[in-house]
Each structure stands twice: as structure tokens, then as C-alpha cells.
């Protein structure tokens, strides 16, 4: 049942991601939302609370701690991979390289790739992978952490399905989504990282998001 929900939600996200291309003005905000009514200057005001990415803490390819706070003030793109992945990861990161090349000199943008095989993908393994991919500096981080934390944040917060399965190629099943998070840590888009057309849309959407006026930053 939960799986169906996740798949359904991913489908809605994906559909929305395709649709958002037609509206250049603003990207949709995904996730649950709830209205809150409060008193401001004696007047009743209704505000909307959006679903945001909760606190997390991982380690990047340089051995530095990366938390939700490190990403404050940044738009970021998230994906899930593992370095020995024989199936979709090479094509995902070939496409992600294009995103990296486009935005590597922008101050307010990051890419974070979580390994879903932290047992094999230690910090030095991730560093080597990043070096070979040609990644330098602090725009694209490859994150390692506790397996439960990675799997939980993938499924519950970024809504990307991942699963260990010895019958799958490389030992894991995972979806190749690139998830776009805004400066308020809300999901603004989800794209098939194996499809160059959707990745082009992601690049366009990041530009739209960068042009969006800064609102209250959720800490």
C-alpha cells in the first residue's frame, strides 16, 4: 500500500515536472501542506505551511560534515546512486555533469548525490569517483552516511524509491530521479535523470528558481 502511494506520488511529481515547463513564471510546490491561522496585528491571517526537507547530517567526499544547515541559502538537486552501479547511474551522472557544468560557478547552487551503498562507497571511494568524473570544488557533493538515514530521507522526504535487492543488477533497485529543492527546502520538481530532455527541463527550472524573489528562509 505504501509502495503504491509512493509510486503514485512520484507519478504526480513527474507529471507536474513535465507540465511546469509550460509555465515559465513559477514552479509548483510539492508535498503536503497545511493552513495555519494566526493573529498578526490584531487581524486573522491564514498562512500555508509546506512540506520541507527535515534536518539531516551526512559526510561528503572530502570528509566534511554536510547538514541541512550547510545547504541554507542554496537551491539544490538531489539524487541517489552507488559507484559500482552497472545500470542507470552512468547515464544519470553523464546528464548531471551537464547540470554541474551549467551552474558550477553560481554561488547559490549545489548538487548532492547520496550513495545507497555506504558499506562499499566509503569517503575515499567517493572522492576517487568524484575525481574521475572530473568534479572539483564544492558545487557537487557525494554524500555518505548511515544506511537507514539515507534510505529514510530518500523515500520519506525526497520521494525516491530505493531498495536493496540481490536479484537486481548491482544489488540495488533505485529510481533515477533528480529532485529539485528550493532555498526554503521545499520540493519544486522531480525529473527522470536518465532522460536528457527532462534534464534540460531541470536546467531551465533551476534558472527559473534562481530568478524567484527570496522569501523567508526556513531554518
Amino acid at each position, binding site marked *: 500500500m505504501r509502495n503504491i502511494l509512493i509510486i503514485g506520488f512520484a507519478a504526480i511529481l513527474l507529471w507536474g515536472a513535465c507540465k511546469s515547463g509550460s509555465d515559465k513564471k513559477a514552479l509548483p510546490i510539492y508535498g503536503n501542506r497545511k493552513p495555519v491561522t494566526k493573529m498578526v496585528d490584531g487581524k486573522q491571517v491564514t498562512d500555508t505551511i509546506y512540506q520541507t526537507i527535515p534536518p539531516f547530517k551526512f559526510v561528503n567526499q572530502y570528509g566534511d560534515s554536510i547538514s541541512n544547515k550547510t545547504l541554507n541559502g542554496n537551491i539544490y538537486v538531489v539524487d541517489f546512486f552507488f559507484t*559500482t552501479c*552497472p545500470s542507470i547511474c552512468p*547515464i544519470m*551522472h553523464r546528464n548531471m*555533469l551537464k547540470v554541474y557544468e551549467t551552474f558550477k560557478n553560481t554561488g547559490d547552487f549545489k548538487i548532492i548525490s547520496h550513495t545507497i551503498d555506504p558499506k562499499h562507497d566509503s569517503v575515499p571511494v567517493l572522492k576517487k569517483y568524484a575525481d*574521475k568524473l572530473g568534479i572539483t570544488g564544492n558545487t557537487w557533493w557525494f554524500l555518505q552516511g548511515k544506511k537507514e538515514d539515507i534510505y529514510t530521507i530518500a523515500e520519506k522526504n525526497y520521494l525516491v524509491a530505493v531498495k536493496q535487492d540481490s536479484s537486481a543488477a548491482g544489488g540495488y533497485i533505485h529510481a533515477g530521479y533528480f529532485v529539485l529543492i528550493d532555498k526554503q527546502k521545499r520540493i519544486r520538481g522531480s525529473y527522470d535523470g536518465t532522460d536528457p530532455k527532462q534534464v534540460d527541463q531541470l536546467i531551465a527550472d533551476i534558472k527559473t528558481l534562481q530568478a524567484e524573489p527570496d522569501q523567508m528562509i526556513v531554518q
Partner: protein
Amino acid sequence: MSWKLAGSLIVFVAILFITACQSDENLEFKRYYSSGALVYQQHCQNCHGTNGEGLSALIPLLSDSTFLRKNVSSLPCYVKNGLKGQITIKGKTFEDAMPANDLSPLEIAQVLTYIGNSFGNKLSTIDEQSVQKNLVGCR
């Protein structure tokens, strides 16, 4: 005679010439090549890319004709059993493992013919018999 008729006659004669020139060998090459393109899409393209461009220093490109020519008898083994250890492609060193592929000798011949004649490479047809012969010698 109208121009239209003359035109179609010229086209017809040209087609006759082209088909007449196609030897059996050429036909065999075309069959291998077009089937090989499909095998490539299904088994190789994710890693090596649509244009055989590879991925940075992680996955080698497939346009090093010299490497392909020099290792032509080992290529079926690489495809079938995967590849471990260091190799040098166009002056760059690669050391990550390539996974094995469960392909028949015919499919291996097809995909090698495709790779050997794409991305700027120009090798001759690699046929099923030669693949079968070379697979025996795999280490």
C-alpha cells in the same frame, strides 16, 4: 519523354547499380551492423553513451581505433566476461571494472561490428565464427 519520366528512369537505374554493387559481404555487414546497433542500445549504451563517448575517467570511450584493432581478438572476451585491471585508451588510464554480459556469440559479433564501424572506427565485419574462435582463448 517528359522530365519526370526521365528523372524516375535515372533513379531506377541508379538503384539497380547500387544493389548490383552490393556483394554478399556487404549485405552481411549491414545485417550485423543494424542488429549490433540494437544490442549496443540494450547492453552498452548506458555506460558507454549514445555516441560511444564514455564518461570522463570512469568509463572509456569507444573511438580508440588503434586499441580496437590491436585487441581485436580479445574484444569478444571483454564483452562476454567483462574487464578488470588497467587499460589505456587514447592516452588515458581506466581502472574500473566492466561487468560481464550474457550475450550469444552472434550478438557479440553484431555489437562488435557495430562498435568497430561507429564513432569514427573503421574495422571490417567481425563475424560469428571468429567470435566463437576467439572466445575459446579467453583468459
